[in-house]
């Protein structure tokens, strides 16, 4: 299991936003996470990449209990997880290409070796021409595509994407989806939080995706209505 939550709960400021989270995400699985705005999708993903720790219950990420990890363990584990933040942040002073190879250089990996992969990735997300642009010079959709590219550049075992197509037109959204499906076929676990029902439907045509729904702070498996 790459992500294992048992009876996990989380709430901000003493409240309880999410509770009784029981979820096993195996390698190679494809999940969608839906729910109305403010239902806790982003919070849930933060539990998965250890930005937040569950207040109760347990969470095991890539086989390790999050409570027993040191700060360095968290850093090392994150190198095996690709995250697309909802509000994608970059290092504004570095050109796009360097931002995309940042996860490689942070992990001490040779970026020169990965250069070819990076080029391919850039053209897949349609940003070859913006390679040398600084992040503040990108459009909203370009930022989201760049964030997805940065998340997958290290070929991580898990990809967590928070609303990765919110600012992107339908054609490009399908392209990004194809990229994720491709990676999923290579054995990566994919979790996408989204409101976009069309995206979910399009994915279901290609992979056996499970759809999770957050409602009232509980996680449900969405039925046949999707």
């Amino acid at each position, binding site marked *: 299991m790459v992500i294992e939550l048992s009876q996990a709960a989380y709430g901000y400021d003493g409240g309880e936003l999410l509770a009784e989270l029981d979820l096993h995400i195996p390698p190679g699985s494809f999940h969608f996470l839906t729910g109305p705005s403010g239902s806790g999708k982003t919070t849930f993903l933060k539990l998965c*990449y*250890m*930005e*937040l*720790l569950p207040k109760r219950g347990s969470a095991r990420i890539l086989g390790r209990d999050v409570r027993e990890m040191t*700060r*360095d363990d*968290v*850093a*090392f*584990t*994150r*190198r095996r997880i690709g*995250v697309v*933040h909802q509000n994608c*942040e*970059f*290092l*504004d*002073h*570095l050109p796009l290409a*360097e931002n995309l190879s*940042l*996860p490689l*250089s*942070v*992990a001490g990996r040779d970026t020169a070796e990965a250069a070819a992969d990076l080029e391919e990735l850039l053209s897949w997300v349609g940003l070859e021409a913006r390679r040398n642009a600084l992040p503040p010079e990108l459009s909203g959709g370009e930022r989201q595509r760049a964030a997805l590219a*940065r998340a997958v550049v290290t070929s991580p075992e898990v990809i967590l994407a928070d609303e990765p197509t919110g600012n992107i037109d339908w054609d490009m959204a399908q392209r990004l989806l194809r990229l994720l499906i491709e990676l999923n076929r290579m054995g990566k676990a994919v979790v996408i939080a989204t409101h976009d029902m069309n995206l979910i439907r399009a994915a279901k045509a290609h992979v056996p995706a499970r759809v999770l729904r957050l409602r009232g702070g509980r996680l449900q498996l969405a039925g046949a209505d999707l």
Partner: protein
Amino acid sequence: MKARLLGAAALLAGDSKADRVVPPSGFTARLTVFTSAAMAFLAVFALALSLATGRLADRWSDQLARSSTVRISAPEDQMPIQEAAVLEVLRTTPGVADARLMSRAEQAALLEPWFGPDLPIETLPIPSLVEVIESEAGFDPDGLRLRLAAEAPGAVLDDHTRWRRPLVEAAGRLRAFGLIAIGLIALSTAAMITLAANAALAANARVIGVLRLVGAQDSYIARAFVRRFTNRTLSGATVGTVAGLIAIMFLPAADEQGGFLTGLGFQGWHWLWPLAIPPLAAITAFWATRLAAIRTLRGLT
């Protein structure tokens, strides 16, 4: 320890890739460079003040102070007895380093300014003079007067040169003042660099967040900031020190006429002191930034 030193060297030599993750410039950077330059400049001056007043105090005490006289007026036959008594009293007085009966020739030389060389000193019924050299601590003039009155009624203590003592004290006080100033400057520099580093860390909260997200270790992030700040402080302090030294070299030298104030410049191996300022500033910056970075990072997930 050796590994540590090597680590520090590697740290300063730099890893250009890790360095680039911190935005290159910005006002906190300039502030750090400027602050360390200004503080180094002031420190050079305070150091110069302190060393110069130290020399001043030494010179004044050597050249001027610590010499008094005892004058013995007595009938011709009493003279040798009283002279011996006075010398004995002075020998046993704490704070008197040396006491010596002056010869007639010396006395004549002392009087020359007033009478010219032709004074027929042998024909005069002049008193004997004993030169008293004080020790560092100095003696208690009132106590000595009382003892002299008891042992040698014709002896009078004249400590008219003791007025120079406050000058020496004043010089000592100025030296202490300079040292206090150096201490204050060092403290404020540390505080300002800590604050500037914290400001930079706060301004770069997003950068740090991105780095944590993509799996950077704390040590990687801290190192990038520490290196930046140490280098900036080092270069700022170097510029400030050099500027301070140049400014001091161009101050008019003061020892032309009297030699009492030897000017604010550095002399001899004292030139090495200001050279210690930039490395000390860099070490301060290193620790200040390191602590600030570790504290900031602990607050993030």
